[in-house]
């Protein structure tokens, strides 16, 4: 027992001493800005900048391979800090937020068959494109919720993801992981979204889903600034023309167009609802 403690302890001490000696002897002078840059970055290693982790981006910025505003997750604040370290002018990028371009949850769009595989959209979409009646619709298996490094996406009771716009940093990882390409990164000032991604003809979409875009063209006529166009059986908003007047929201017969960030955040109300449910369950 004693010899074991002393033996392993001695081994550890010797190795520790060797390492600390070696780190002095083989010390390599690094650019002091690299450490400062790593400190300035968020450190979540989300990879949204396209480099392997925050250290990877710091190295790329030092080499001049990446602009100082590469960190989308950190936003304006991090851009300013990184630019200050590098001694260049900060070019602030416009903030983007993830928007889920599908409103067809469990109630609105029925399943074609019962999927009993792995609880993951990517796995489900490999089997005949997923169970959802609409081939373009959200599968509701929470892959976006799982991959979000900032905990900004939660599934609601209708098996649809809800984005918390306060937590969303615009890193775009959810958009890259959605097998149906339903998540779009949209400029923060744009608040009106046509939340449908179906390229089926209007009649087909109507059969599959009660809230899909049926290509009635009412929004196109209602828009006073000509921001809405119909392309491939789907109405699309030009984010640079739209001025959030909400006339299209009123004109849409299927409620596809909506103000995604209206009034109080939907996310907060969702959490309150879940709290209420758990409390009433506890009371029962």
């Amino acid at each position: 027992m004693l010899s074991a403690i002393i033996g392993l302890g001695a081994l550890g001490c010797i190795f520790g001493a060797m390492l600390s000696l070696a780190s002095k002897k083989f010390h390599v002078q690094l650019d002091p800005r690299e450490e400062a840059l790593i400190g300035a970055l968020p450190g979540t290693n989300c990879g949204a900048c396209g480099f392997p982790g925050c250290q990877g981006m710091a190295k790329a910025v030092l080499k001049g391979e990446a602009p100082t505003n590469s960190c989308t997750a950190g936003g304006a604040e991090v851009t300013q800090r990184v630019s200050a370290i590098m001694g260049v002018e900060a070019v602030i990028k416009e903030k983007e937020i993830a928007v889920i371009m599908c409103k067809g949850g469990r109630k609105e769009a029925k399943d074609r068959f019962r999927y009993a595989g792995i609880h993951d959209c990517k796995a489900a979409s490999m089997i005949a494109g997923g169970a959802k009646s609409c081939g373009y619709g959200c599968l509701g298996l929470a892959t976006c919720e799982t991959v979000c490094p900032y905990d900004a996406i939660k599934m609601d009771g209708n098996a649809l993801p809800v984005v918390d716009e306060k937590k969303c940093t615009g890193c775009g990882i959810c958009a890259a992981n959605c097998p149906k390409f339903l998540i779009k990164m949209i400029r923060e000032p744009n608040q009106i979204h046509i939340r449908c991604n179906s390229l089926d003809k209007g009649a087909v979409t109507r059969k599959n889903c009660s809230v899909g875009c049926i290509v009635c063209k009412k929004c196109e006529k209602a828009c006073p600034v000509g921001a809405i166009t119909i392309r491939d059986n789907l109405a699309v908003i030009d984010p640079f023309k739209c001025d959030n007047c909400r006339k299209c929201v009123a004109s849409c017969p299927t409620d596809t167009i909506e103000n995604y960030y209206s009034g109080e955040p939907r996310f907060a109300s969702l959490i309150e609802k879940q709290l209420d449910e758990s409390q009433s369950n506890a009371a029962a």
Partner: protein
Amino acid sequence: MIDNEMTWYMIALSAILVNNIVLIRFLALCSFFGVSNKIEVSLSMGMAVIFVMTLASAVSWAIWYFFLFPLKIEFLRTASFILVIATLVQLVEMYIKKTSPALYNALGIYLPLITTNCAVLGVAILIIDYKLGFLTSIIYTIGVAAGYTLSIVLFAGIRERIDMAPIPEILKGTPIIFITAGIMSLAFLGFTHLFGL
């Protein structure tokens, strides 16, 4: 089974083909799947493994016969070997970083990756279990590492072709890779009892 009486080429043959560390013993699978995208990358990973594994088993052999065995604390084998390997990789990394930045950049992430490679610890333990002498241990270790390099390079070559091949939708990506590795393992089973090994 390896012992001290065998000739060096029989030991090497046994380590490379008959008891291949990846395909027969199923060790080092994480790096086997992780860094086998391209032949060049897997080759440099293999070279790094040969280098680190040889050093690690030489040092663990010395630790066992001059430290743990005389002090009768053999049960600390796993703990002290992990300590040895982790320290060694750190030292080698520092040394290379100082003396040869080009080699450091070439090895890149692979050096720290090897620290957590179970094959390195596995070989260190195997040479003790087989009661091999120092020289035999070194030959055996080089053989095992060469076997690792052989299998990962072969696998990377197959994967490069798989990327081009029309794979059925449900098998694309990881599933076909696992199936391929399984078939490769079956193929290597054909070497069993080769030359009576």
